[in-house]
């Protein structure tokens, strides 16, 4: 009440507005309202995760909305992980080569 009549200044965008801007920027549309709601949930989760990463990062990186912000970690992994088979890369150990690795 004490702020009534004063210019509140720039306010943080509401989640739905941020999501709408994300959809425009990356040309995203969803097949039905249920899917839209699901993607909004995922988007919110990813934003929260980005905030956590921002807090944890020890460098100068900035984390936030990207073209992957409406994907679950699993979907992102399926899209871009270089090895879809479980287990990933073989556990190659340095024991066999030590400092000689890199020599012909």
């Amino acid at each position: 009440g004490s702020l009534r009549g004063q210019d509140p200044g720039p306010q943080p965008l509401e989640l739905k507005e941020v999501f709408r801007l994300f959809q425009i920027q990356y040309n995203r549309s969803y097949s039905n309202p249920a899917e839209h709601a699901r993607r909004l949930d995922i988007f919110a989760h990813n934003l929260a995760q980005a905030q956590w990463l921002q807090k944890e990062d020890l460098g100068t990186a900035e984390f936030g909305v990207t073209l992957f912000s409406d994907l679950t970690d699993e979907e992102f992994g399926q899209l871009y992980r270089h090895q879809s088979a479980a287990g990933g890369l073989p556990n190659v150990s340095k024991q066999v080569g030590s400092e000689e690795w890199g020599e012909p």
Partner: protein
Amino acid sequence: LPPTCDWRKAAGIISSVKNQENCNCCWAMAAAGNIEALWGIKHHQSVEVSVQELLDCGRCGNGCRGGFVWDAFITVLNNSGLASEKDYPFQGTVRTHRCLARRHKKVAWIQDFIMLPDNEQKIAWYLATQGPITVTINMKLLKQYQKGVIKATPTTCDPRLVDHSVLLVGFGTSKSVERKPAEAVSSQAHPQHSTPYWILKNSWGASWGEKGYFRLHRGSNTCGITKYPLTARVDQPVKKQRVSCP
């Protein structure tokens, strides 16, 4: 070792940022970028090689479902080189058993490939003196990455779980303001410290990250960058003095 190195500054060495789209072919794009860069450095000739050939002709089948950089190099050796991207363009899908390698002229080839030591100083030296190399990292933090230097801990980005191959194109050091925990932030000026970093070329299009590139902290094995540093060799290794076994 020079203080900075950025192969993007040399004309005709680093090709445009690619977009792998719905194909898990980071391994092929990283290998292609490595060969293109080394070919440009060695022969002073700019080439763009065919990623699609690596996918169609790989011995492991569907390259859009993932693969390894070393398999890309083996494909190049088996096919005696690679066609140009222009002749054999990227489709984003694999045509297994539809390898068209023989139809096209080879524009680049390799002698062999090697894995470098898991030592960031030695990797920097190789990068500065020989050219860009491929590395495989944990891509967990890249999903939310916008810009800047990522410095992770093994907790936030496990260096053992590497799952994404990219091209290492340079390194440098940035002056940065030390970030404090939120509760400790004061109005006083923050101390500056230098952040050594790697410059990496991703294959998710130029609209992602820093115009398609990203930076990782150098010196802390951030996201497992030292786990699989691989590079092709486009020239014969220098002959070393022979020794004789008694």
